[in-house]
């Protein structure tokens, strides 16, 4: 069983979560989706995923959450060595400029999606971020070529001296 790469969605409004997860279903065959309604819950989910020997490739996180807000959650996660490289995307209509700058500086925020999002926009961000993740983490690119940016993954393979056996 190869290591699974998860997409984690953190969003407290259930209808919004439902819509987000629905838009992500085309990725689910390759990247199982997990969800959480608060930062607290998200932390438990993250631990479970890593406990199972799997990892998180991408986190889509709302900013306004009960308890700890999204930016602070991402910063905390970023400080953890294991989750340092997971791609972090803020999906929100409400984070102010300051919060966003804070997130970019301290959590190495990888992208910002403003609500309401479109399917195309979400797809392109998810593809870009997960492709980055696969390349940075040196995962087997062939596993994900069909769903991610195949040209970039092929280019990555070209540069990394794949050999014939």
């Amino acid at each position, binding site marked *: 069983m190869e290591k699974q790469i998860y997409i984690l969605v953190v969003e407290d409004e259930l209808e919004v979560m439902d819509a987000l997860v629905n838009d992500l279903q085309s990725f689910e065959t390759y990247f199982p989706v997990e969800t959480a309604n608060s930062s607290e819950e998200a932390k438990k989910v993250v631990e479970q995923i890593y406990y199972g020997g799997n990892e998180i490739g991408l986190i889509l996180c709302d900013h306004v959450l009960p308890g700890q807000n999204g930016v602070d959650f991402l910063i905390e996660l970023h400080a953890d060595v294991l989750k340092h490289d997971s791609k972090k995307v803020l999906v929100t209509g409400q984070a102010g400029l300051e919060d966003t700058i804070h997130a970019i500086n301290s959590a190495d925020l990888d992208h910002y999606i403003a609500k309401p999002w479109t399917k195309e926009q979400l797809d392109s961000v998810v593809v870009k971020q997960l492709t980055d993740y696969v390349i940075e983490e040196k995962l087997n*690119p062939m596993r994900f070529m069909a769903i991610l940016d*195949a*040209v970039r993954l*092929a280019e990555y393979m070209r540069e990394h*001296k*794949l050999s*014939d*056996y």
Partner: protein
Amino acid sequence: MNLSRKQLVGLVLGLIGLVVPFFLSIEGLSQAGHVALGIFFLAAVFWMLEPFPIYATSVLVIFLQILLLSKEGFIFKEITEVYTPDSYTAFIGTLASPIIILFLGGFVLADAAVKYNLDRNLTRILLSPFGNKPQFIVLGLMIVTALLSAFMSNTATTAMMMTVILPIIARIDVDDPLRIGLALCIPFAANIGGIATPIGTPPNAVVIGALSQQGINIPFGEWMILATPLVVVVLLFAWILLLTMFKPKANSVKVDMSGAFNTSKNAIILYIAFGFTVLFWITESFHGVKSAIIALIPVVFLTLTGVVTKEDIRKLPWEVLWLVAGGISLGISMKSTGLAEWIVGSIEWSSFGAITLILVFSIVAVMMSNFLSNTVTATLLIPLAVSLATSGIAGEGFNLIIVSLVIGVSASMAMMLPISTPPNAIAMSTGTIQTAHMAKAGFTMGIFGVLMVLLYALFYWPLILN
């Protein structure tokens, strides 16, 4: 380390295979032959079921031979009548055998070519005369792919060509079979193109390595004279086959590759090194300098000038060299312990004609390498073929070189399944094609390949070799 059920079975079977011959007493097989048989079992099972990476098994094979079969090993410290143990250096030496050095040169050249975008720029230039008709675009892509994969690894070539064709595919209608044709033409051409030169793909190295142990040297240029006509015919067939099976609907296709040749000092050095090396390789028969020696030219030249750096060297696919060396090493003791001869001798070969034998070896090679690594297939089959030819059991007309070629070339004709070769796996993983498409076209290619190998082995190769 988590082993799958298949891997677990492989591990257990391999170990049993290693141990059991120690407790058997097989008539006509020396004591050392029993040990070699155990090692052969282990290697074959490990290479086929892969409880460990195949390059790891190769090193294990070298190590086990040193431990159990060399003069410095535990068992055969003395020379006896039936078995003259080799020095351990014979086994270790395979890691630096001429074919390995030849490959090293090829790796360094290919690595530098990728680094300075030579492969991509050549593609751009070579594709431009093919216009925008889908039929000719496919032909152009196949020719370029075959050409590049003759000097670079098939896999790296496929990956590069994918970056060229994926944008084209994205612009074609979803229901146009041209998409499938495009996605299949690259791995097919890469697999076929690898046959063209000694450094094109590792099975060629196994063939050349095995022959050189028999004292037969095949110059670079001569290999090309033997193999290239076959490559051209099979490539053209593949072109026609793919266009017939997946008839394009689109009337024109646009290839837009932009870029310019890198004109930095390092790039120019590389172009010169590349040109000269290839030229000297092809003309080996004229000047007589061995291709393995020529292979050192780019290694020396490019590292001295800093075109290839320490980081680049670290990233070379060393495991391929180990794999080939392991195969050559296994061949050494199979021969010196009389194991190969015994295996060969246990079958009544003379009842088959040369044609049948060639056909059998070719078909077995294609079938095996559809499921196994091409290199492993060649490694396991060639020692048998070599013994068969040298022992003279198979009778007249069973030429050592030809049968080795048959196996080496047939191993590259396997392209039915995604697991057959890495280029197939890459094409499959883009999600553009389904296994059925690949199996259908790959099966036909296999049949045609076997037929062509037979024809060449009967008529063309003897002509050249004599």
